[in-house]
């Protein structure tokens, strides 16, 4: 993790997919073409959302980047390495729709989990987990257990856990999908604050058009059967505030994404 390493990474794309395709159960009667011909570049520090109807392969695409599943064809590079090498180097971190906290661990120990796996010393882990709790504004809840937290708070702990080892890339699979509208908007602001504080690259799967346009610098619109990229909408709305949700440019981009989604069918 030297400085030269860091500046070299800055020139590389965070994610580079060429001709990516994924077929589940290849050659069997229940074969499913999940993704075909995916070409996608994501630069360092970008906030990219993947949007599309159910079955368009957006979660599959996220898992290809994470190397949790293999591509059937094509290449996926993360920070210039194969996706699996990036996984083994812990270049990225994932947040799922369900917070998936370990109920037998308190909040602080949940955040320390990846650090434990990486062999950090206890004192360093504790310090980092305290920093992370401050980042997601849950410092008073370090010793609570997940069952004692609301859904939004649990998801904030999951984000803190994901960010704990300062990964370069954050992969989020409908992280706010299970939250109510108010909590959801609040979490969007929190995520953008964390993003602007850390300048981490984010790939964010959602099926909410408003969420995609509010959050990201680039909206990747996908369409189903077979899953493919229908359009990429650049979404430069500048710094987000509450006022952004009433901005004409925000509505214009929502319309653009909606039309791209319709065109894909």
């Amino acid at each position, binding site marked *: 993790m030297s400085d030269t390493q860091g500046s070299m990474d800055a020139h590389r794309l965070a994610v580079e997919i060429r001709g990516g395709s994924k077929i589940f159960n290849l050659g069997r009667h229940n074969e499913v073409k999940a993704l075909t011909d995916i070409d996608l570049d994501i630069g360092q520090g970008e906030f990219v959302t993947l949007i599309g109807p159910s079955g368009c392969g957006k979660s599959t695409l996220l898992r290809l980047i994470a190397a949790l599943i293999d591509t059937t064809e094509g290449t996926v590079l993360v920070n210039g390495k194969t996706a699996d090498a990036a996984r083994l180097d812990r270049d990225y*971190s*994932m947040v799922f729709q369900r917070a998936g906290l370990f109920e037998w661990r308190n909040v602080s120990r949940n955040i320390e*989990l990846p650090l434990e796996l990486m062999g950090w010393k206890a004192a360093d882990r504790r310090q980092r987990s305290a920093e992370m709790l401050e980042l997601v504004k849950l410092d008073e809840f370090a010793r609570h257990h997940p069952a004692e*937290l609301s859904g939004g708070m649990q998801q904030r702990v999951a984000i803190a856990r994901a960010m704990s080892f300062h990964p370069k890339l954050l992969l989020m699979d409908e992280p706010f999908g299970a939250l109510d509208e108010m909590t959801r908007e609040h979490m969007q602001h929190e995520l953008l604050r964390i993003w602007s504080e850390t300048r981490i690259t984010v790939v964010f799967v959602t099926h909410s058009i408003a969420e995609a346009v509010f959050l990201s610098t680039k909206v990747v619109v996908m369409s189903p059967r077979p899953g493919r990229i229908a359009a990429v909408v650049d979404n430069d709305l500048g710094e987000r505030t509450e006022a952004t949700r009433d901005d004409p440019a925000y509505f214009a981009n929502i319309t653009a994404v909606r039309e791209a989604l319709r065109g894909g069918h």
Partner: protein
Amino acid sequence: MVFEELLRQRAAREQRRDRMVRTGRQIVVLGLFICLLGLLYSLYKVMGSAIDDVQSGWPVIGSILPGSDDLRMPPVLDIVGGIFEEPRGTDEPFWSIVGKEAAFTLREAAVGFAAGVVVGLGIAIVLTTSGRLERALVPHVIASQTIPLIAIAPIIVIWGRKSFDFLPFEWQDWMSVSIIATYLTFFPVTINGLRGLQSPRPENLELMDSYAARWGQTLWRLRLPASLPYLFSAFKIAATASVVGAIVGEISAGVKGGLGRRVLLEAQRYTTGPERLYIAVLGAAALGIFVFAAISSIEYALVGRKGRETVT
């Protein structure tokens, strides 16, 4: 800060008090249950005696149901008295003799239980590594339990005496009984352990993969903690089964010094003291309750989440 500390102290105090109340309540319930059993036993006996003496009244007992004369059903007071009596040829009260024998059986059962947990969990962990292995081996694990214990007990004792010379310590017969207890113990641990080890949600396993966790790390930090509730219900079954295994093992293998032997002996000289057989059986029951309670309290300490409110 001071206020929070006080709140914490109060919560800890309440938790301790909760536990004491819980234990106390259980002891009272157990005592009442024993009294109720004694009462029902006596009631049946009184109703049965009526026909033995007067040849009238309760035709069901004695004809359809077994009769209740003092040989078949020693009076409750005889049983209670027998606990404190010194049997002929000894200068020790009977409770003390049975207690020592229960301790002997407990050692066999405890060693057998511990070995069964290690073996059972080991098999479960191995089976977790591959679905194909699981499908291939689980039927054999189940089949192993269909072999009657009484048939294999003498074989294990003979093996112990003749074949275990390579061990660094001298093999003793009670260790063979422990093996018999192990045979009963490992099964529920394997079956429940397998379910528990497979209980984490897919996204939690994906999470560990995304952190590039090694197999052993996932096992230790996710699969095993997630399986604890499953394992403890297996441990409770296994602990009582280990006592049964030890007693049956002693009887069928002819091992001296434990409760199994005592039950056999008191059955042989039943006519001279029927209450002693009853006491031996009650001792065995008490031992089973004891191991069950011991596992329960370990479970409570390890996975109990009492006194913590879920926020909804």
